[in-house]
């Protein structure tokens, strides 16, 4: 990867249609690599999630022609919430296979073109329309179902195992889970106060998050990402071209993907695929994935780590930008990615490991800086224009590894010290598809 661009994500950009948004993110990326002329771009991969939002089919063709890239090759990529992550990997594959020397990955979403609750309907159409959609058509409800079971498995049956009254034990477990999910929301919103591209930077307290409107129990408004307009681009090329274009290229050393059943109801109760540092004994009595964990995330993480030669992600990665559409899924994803064992996600959060060392969160975070997760602010605070999101993560990770956060954010706070290797993680509906890509400093 030699360059990237991203528009500020916003509730609505009515003055820009999708073509203009992508053009701005494209121009920003091209300006960073002045030796790259348009004629050297071999082709593109263009991503957006929903045809419903723009009510313009084959919109990717219009991106291609607005950028003046005809008659070069292009194809549209769509894979639910993981659309941006898949687009990044499609561009990677185009270059790695030898088909292209330079590939532009470009993604966008214009979600403001319908009312929020109509937008929720469009998103929920990416669930089984015979069995799931007619019950409420509401993704937040599906994630709430997942985290209630997660809290049952990992708080009720552990921390609250001593409580005799079953219903009381479950209430206590959920209350504790809500409090810990709020830590994630606080972290990501406060990180975003140093990121000028973020949609909702704010200093929140755990109490603010708990007091915000209940959307789908136990998830409150501040624990959920919102609808956004935005675009992002990444330019990928061969190693020899990269050296001509920049003195700070970033190497993509691992890509992984995974899938799971569309319906939560169909997820099996089997055994856990293990990272090298885990043992079968760790999960002897754990029905997996059930509805509590994302098997696709684990599968993607294992594949990407194997390719990059990583055996222990917590020790060998310097940071992760992951798909926190819900504060709950950030905690579930810590476990999928092997940052901690299944069941340890809540304690991992409270240890402070995913927090930044140099920021005051108003929380006691003794292990802060061990594994910064979503230093940019993540989806919860940056926004989630679906087709752009996975590419936004790539751009923020790219700037982080280049050591150019200060240059792009006008604020050095989020720049980690000398990061060498980071991961980006993109996730589709209830974990039906996940991508993980590993980026490393190539200079």
């Amino acid at each position, binding site marked *: 990867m030699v360059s990237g661009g991203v528009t500020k994500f916003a509730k609505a950009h009515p003055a820009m249609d999708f073509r203009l948004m992508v053009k701005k993110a494209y121009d920003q990326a091209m300006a960073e690599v002045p030796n790259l002329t348009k004629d050297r771009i071999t082709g593109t991969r263009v991503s957006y999630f929903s045809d419903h939002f723009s009510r313009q089919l084959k919109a990717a063709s219009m991106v291609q022609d607005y950028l003046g890239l005809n008659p070069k090759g292009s194809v549209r990529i769509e894979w639910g919430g993981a659309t941006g992550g898949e687009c990044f990997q499609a561009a990677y594959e185009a270059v790695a296979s030898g088909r292209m020397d330079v590939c532009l990955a470009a993604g966008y979403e214009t979600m403001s073109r319908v*009312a929020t609750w109509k937008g*929720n309907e469009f998103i929920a159409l990416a669930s089984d329309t015979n069995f799931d959609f007619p019950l409420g058509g509401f993704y937040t409800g599906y994630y709430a179902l997942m985290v209630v079971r997660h809290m049952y498995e990992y708080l*009720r049956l552990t921390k609250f195992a001593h409580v005799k009254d079953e219903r009381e034990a*479950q209430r206590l477990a959920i209350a504790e889970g809500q409090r810990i999910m709020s830590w994630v929301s606080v972290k990501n919103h406060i990180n975003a106060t140093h990121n000028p591209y973020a949609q909702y930077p704010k200093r929140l307290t755990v109490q603010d998050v708990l007091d915000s*409107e209940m959307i789908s129990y136990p998830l409150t408004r501040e624990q959920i990402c919102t609808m956004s307009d935005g675009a992002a681009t990444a330019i990928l090329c061969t190693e020899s071209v990269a050296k001509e274009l920049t003195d700070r290229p970033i190497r993509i050393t691992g890509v992984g993907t995974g899938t799971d059943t569309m319906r939560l*109801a169909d997820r099996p109760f089997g055994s856990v695929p293990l990272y090298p540092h885990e043992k079968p004994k760790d999960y002897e009595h754990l029905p997996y994935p059930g509805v509590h964990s994302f098997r696709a995330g684990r599968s993607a993480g294992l594949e990407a780590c194997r390719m990059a030669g990583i055996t222990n992600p917590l020790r060998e990665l310097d940071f992760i930008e992951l798909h926190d559409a819900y504060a709950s899924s950030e905690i579930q994803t810590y476990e999928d990615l092997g940052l901690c064992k299944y069941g340890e996600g809540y304690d991992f959060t409270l240890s402070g490991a995913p927090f930044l060392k140099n920021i005051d969160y108003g929380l006691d975070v003794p292990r802060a800086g061990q594994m910064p997760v979503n230093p940019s602010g993540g989806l919860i605070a940056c926004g989630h224009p679906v087709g752009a999101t996975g590419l936004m993560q790539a751009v923020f990770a790219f700037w982080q590894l280049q050591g150019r956060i200060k240059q792009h954010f006008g604020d050095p706070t989020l720049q980690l010290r000398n990061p060498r290797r980071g991961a980006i993680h993109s996730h589709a509906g209830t974990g039906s598809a996940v991508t993980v890509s590993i980026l490393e400093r190539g200079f």
Partner: protein
Amino acid sequence: MPRPKTFQHFRDVQEELGRSGAAIFRDANGVESLVIDSPYSIHYIHSYAEDSPFFLALAEGKLLGSRCTNPSCGFVYATPRGHCMVCGRPTEWKELPRKGRVHSWTTCQFGSEAFLKETPYNLAMIEFEGAGSLLLVRLKDCVQSDLYVGMPVEARFASDPKYSITDVWFVPSK
């Protein structure tokens, strides 16, 4: 012809579209965009195809799952599927018990547009004795504070079927 009205807040633009069908949005930089109402309505000819017997059975007050016909597999699906996910063989219909337990649950204060008028509503994933997968349903006649994992529940069926998954719902077992 008069120009559409100009607004600085996008929310006001949305309201104006409901009234007159057009508005101008002026952003903080003074850039103006013309915004119009653009309705879109479709009637799909949706076939339940191989899932049809499930929805017809609901109308008769029966809950059908499916069982793999491979004797060495025999996996039972609470949400029916035409072919087995484990071994790939065809499945056969199998009536499920009317009673089950809550595997997980939530209470939704919102939903997508079509369901907002039904809020709040409860969703639950149900586990059945003898089945290896779950069924997602609405849970009625109870409120958030009544719900817990493991709660015994039983099926109720619509007397005027709409041929939708909402023709079945569960209530707490007495």
